[in-house]
C-alpha cells in the first residue's frame, strides 16, 4: 500500500517535470521578440536597438534552450519563479496576492458544483423519467454546452443590470461572489449531475438495490442508503477532473468579473508575452492539475480496497 502511494507520488513528480519542460519549450518557441516588448514597456518612445540587445543579454535569451530551462528549474526549485516582465513584481509576490482570489473562486465554485450536481442527480434519479428528471436533464445539457463567457454575460445582464441584485465586477462582500461561482460551477455541475444520475440508475438495477426493495425499503431509501454510497468512486474521480478544469474557466471568469486572480494574470501575461509570468503560471497550473489528480487517486485507493491490490500479470 505504502509502496503504491510512493509510486504514484514519484510518477506525479515526473509528470510535473515533463510538463514544465514542455511548457517552457512552447512558451519560448513562440515567435516574436520579447526583449523588444520589454524595452518598449521600460522606455516607451525611448526604446532602441541597443536597449533591446542588452535586455536580451541580461535575461539570457541568447542562451541555448536547455541551459535556460535548467537555470529556470534550479531557481524554481528554490521558490524563485523570476520577476514578471509585465508588472515588474516577483512572481512569488504576484502569486501571494492572487492565489487567494483564485482559490476562493475555485473553492466556492467547487462546493456549488458538488451541491448542485448531487441535488440535480439525485432529484433526477428520484423522479426517474418524470418531469423533474426531464427538466434537469435538459438543464444539464444546456449547462454543459454553454460557454462560460456567455453564461457570465447573461447572468450579469439579468441579475446585475436588470434586477440590480449583485455587483457586476470586483469583490465587495459575499453577494459579489455569487455570479462568478455560478458561472464557474455551471459546467462541472451539469456534467457531474449526469454522472450522478446515470450511475444511480445503473446502481439501482444492481442486486443489492433489488434486495433493498425486497426488504420493503422505499425508492428514496434505497437511492440514498444503498445506491448513493456506491457511486462515490466514479463521482470522486469525475469531480477531481472537473475541479481541475475549473482553473481554465477561472481564466475567463476572473477577467469578466474583474477578479484579480491567477487566471486574469495569465491572460495579461499572454498578451504581453511575459514569458516569465506565463511559465510560472503554467507551472502553477501543472502543480494544481497533478496534485488534485494525485489526491483523488489516493482518496479512491483509500475508499476502494480493490484499487489497492497490486495488478497481476
Amino acid at each position, binding site marked *: 500500500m505504502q509502496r503504491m502511494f510512493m509510486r504514484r507520488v514519484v510518477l506525479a513528480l515526473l509528470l510535473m517535470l515533463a510538463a514544465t519542460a514542455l511548457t517552457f519549450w512552447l512558451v519560448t518557441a513562440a515567435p516574436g521578440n520579447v526583449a523588444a516588448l520589454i524595452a518598449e514597456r521600460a522606455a516607451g*518612445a525611448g526604446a*532602441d*536597438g541597443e536597449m533591446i540587445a542588452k535586455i536580451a543579454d541580461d535575461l539570457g535569451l541568447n542562451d541555448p534552450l536547455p541551459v535556460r530551462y535548467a537555470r529556470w528549474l534550479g531557481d524554481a526549485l528554490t521558490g524563485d519563479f523570476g520577476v514578471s516582465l509585465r508588472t515588474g513584481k516577483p512572481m512569488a509576490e504576484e502569486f501571494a*496576492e492572487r492565489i487567494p482570489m483564485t482559490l476562493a473562486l475555485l473553492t466556492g465554485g467547487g462546493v456549488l458544483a458538488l451541491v448542485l450536481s448531487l441535488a440535480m442527480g439525485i432529484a433526477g434519479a428520484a423522479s426517474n423519467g418524470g418531469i423533474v428528471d426531464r427538466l434537469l436533464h435538459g438543464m444539464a445539457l444546456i449547462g454543459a454546452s454553454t460557454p462560460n463567457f456567455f453564461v457570465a454575460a447573461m447572468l*450579469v445582464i439579468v441579475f*446585475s443590470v436588470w434586477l440590480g441584485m*449583485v*455587483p*457586476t465586477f470586483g469583490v465587495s462582500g459575499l*453577494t459579489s461572489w455569487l455570479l462568478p461561482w455560478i458561472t464557474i460551477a455551471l459546467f462541472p455541475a451539469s456534467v457531474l449531475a449526469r454522472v450522478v444520475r446515470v450511475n444511480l440508475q445503473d446502481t439501482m438495477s444492481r442486486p443489492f438495490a433489488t434486495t433493498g426493495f425486497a426488504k420493503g425499503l422505499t425508492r428514496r431509501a434505497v437511492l440514498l442508503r444503498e445506491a448513493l454510497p456506491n457511486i462515490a468512486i466514479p463521482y470522486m474521480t469525475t469531480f477531481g477532473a472537473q475541479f481541475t478544469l475549473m482553473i481554465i474557466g477561472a481564466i475567463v471568469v476572473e477577467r469578466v468579473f474583474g477578479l484579480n486572480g491567477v487566471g486574469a494574470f495569465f491572460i495579461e501575461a499572454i498578451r504581453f508575452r511575459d514569458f516569465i509570468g506565463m511559465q510560472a503560471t503554467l507551472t502553477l497550473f501543472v502543480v494544481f492539475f497533478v496534485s488534485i489528480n494525485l489526491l483523488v487517486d489516493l482518496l479512491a485507493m483509500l475508499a476502494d480496497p480493490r484499487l489497492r491490490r497490486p495488478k497481476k500479470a
Partner: protein
Amino acid sequence: MLKLDRRSFLATTAGLSFLTVLPRIAFADGHADTLRVAIAGETGDLDLLQNVSTLSSYSAVFDALIHYGPGGALEPGLATAWTIAEDGLSISFDLREGVSFTDGTPFDATAAEWNLKRWMGVADFSWIGIADAFDSIVIDAPNKITVKLKRPVPAALLELIIVRPVRFLSPKAAAGQPIGTGPWIVESYSSTETVLVRNDAYWGDKPAFGRMELKVVPDELARANALRAGELDVIGGDWVAALSPRRAQALAGEGMTIVAEPGTATTILGFSPQSPMMQDKAVRDAIFLGIDRAAVATVLFEGFADPTVDIFPATVPTAGSRTPVPARDVAAAQAALTAGGWAGDAAGWTKDGTALEIAFLVSEESFPGSRRIAEMIQGMLMEVGVKTNIETVDNATMHDRRPKFDYDLTFFGTYGAPYDPHGSLGASFVTASDTGPDGKIYVHPDLDALVATALETGGDAREGAMQAVYDWLRTNTAACPLVVTQRLWAVHPRVAGFTLPATDYDLPFKGITLG
C-alpha cells in the same frame, strides 16, 4: 404528457417570488460625492521615471509647468509665464507662487530644479529633445528658473506638457509615494482599485466632488455592464479604458450619454520603404486611391471616426493645411498602375513577370479591430485587382517584424496630443531615429532632411517647415492615412457636466457634477 405536481409548482412559485422581493442594490448609494471611473489596468505607483504605471492617472496627481489647452494651446500650469531667449538657448519660467505639494513641501525654484534634474541631461530620457539638449538650470529667484540648452529645441514647451517624466514630484516623497501638487491625492492603490481624494489646497479649480475611485475592469463588456448597472459613472478614453464604437452605439440606446469629439491620433496604413513592391509609387498610389475611407469610418467605426488623408488632424498644432478626402476611385487606382508599367485589370496585375501581391501584417493585440479593417481594405483592393494576403500575428511578432520593415502593408498610429506633431515626426519618419519595437511609418533620405529642418525651426517659420514635410509625404504617397478615431466616452445619467479631458492621457473630472 408532462405533469407538474403541486409540490413542484409551489416550489417554483416560491423561488420566483423570492427573487422579486430581493432588494435591488442602489450602487450609487454612499457614492454621492464619488466619481467612479473605469481603468483597464492598475494605475501602479505612478513613478514618474518608470514606464510601468497607467499614463492616464498621472495628471490627476501631478502638475506640469505648462498645461495642454484646446488645439494645443499652451496654458499656464505650475509656470505662470515663460520666455524663450531669442537664440533659443534658454527658457525662463515664472513659477506659480503659493503652491505646495500635498505633503506640505513648498513648490519653488529649488523643488523645480530637483525635479527637472531627475530627467534633463539623463541618457534614458534623451528621446525628449529638451532633455537631450539640456545644459544647466539657473535659479534666478525663489520662484523663477532658467533652463539653459546646448541647442534650440523648438518643441520644448510642448515637451514639458507630456505625462512623464516631466511632472513635478515632492522632493520629500519617499520611493513609491506619488505626491504632487495636482487636484487629487492618492489615498490608496491596489491591483483592483486606486482611490483619490480631492486636494482641497489645490491652486486651480477644485473638482466639484471629493473622491474619485479608479476601478480596474480589464474587460470592455464588463465595463459596459457596470455602467448600465450604475456601478461605474464613466467609461472610455483610449488610454484609460477604451470603449469600442459598437459598444458605444449600444450604450447610447440604453440611456447612457455618449460623448464623442474629434480625436488627435491618426490611423495610418504604412508602406514598407524596404519592400520592392511598396517602393513602386504606382502601387502606393493605387492603394491610396482604392480605399474608401468614409466607408471604413462609417461601417467599422460606427461613425465615430473621421476619414482623412492628412498625417495629423487639425486638433494638434501645426498639423498643416487640410486636404480634401478623395472619394474612392477604382478606375483612377487602376490607371495609376497602368501608368506605372503594370499590366492587368481587376483580375490581377503583373509587371516584369511579377504578380502584384501584397503582404498585409496585422496584430489585433497591437491594434484592436485592425483585422476587420484589413479585411475591408482587402476587399476594396481586390476590386482594383490588387491581391493582399493578411497575416495576423501576436504583439511580440509585430514588434519584431515592424522595426525590420518585414511587411508590405501594416497599420500605424500617430501618438496624438500632446506628443504630436513633433513626437511622431521625429520618431516615425526619420531614418536615424531608433524607435525600437514601434518601427517607422516611412523613411527616405529626402524626408530626413525635411523633418530635421521642421523640428529645428522655431517661430513663424515652423508652420511652413512642417507643411513642407506634409507636402512631401503627400506628393510621394509615402503613407496612407485612413481615419482619425474620435475620442469616445460613455457617461452614466447621474453624471452632469461631463467635459472631455485635455488629452487622451488625462482623466475626466473637470466640470463634472454628480447627481
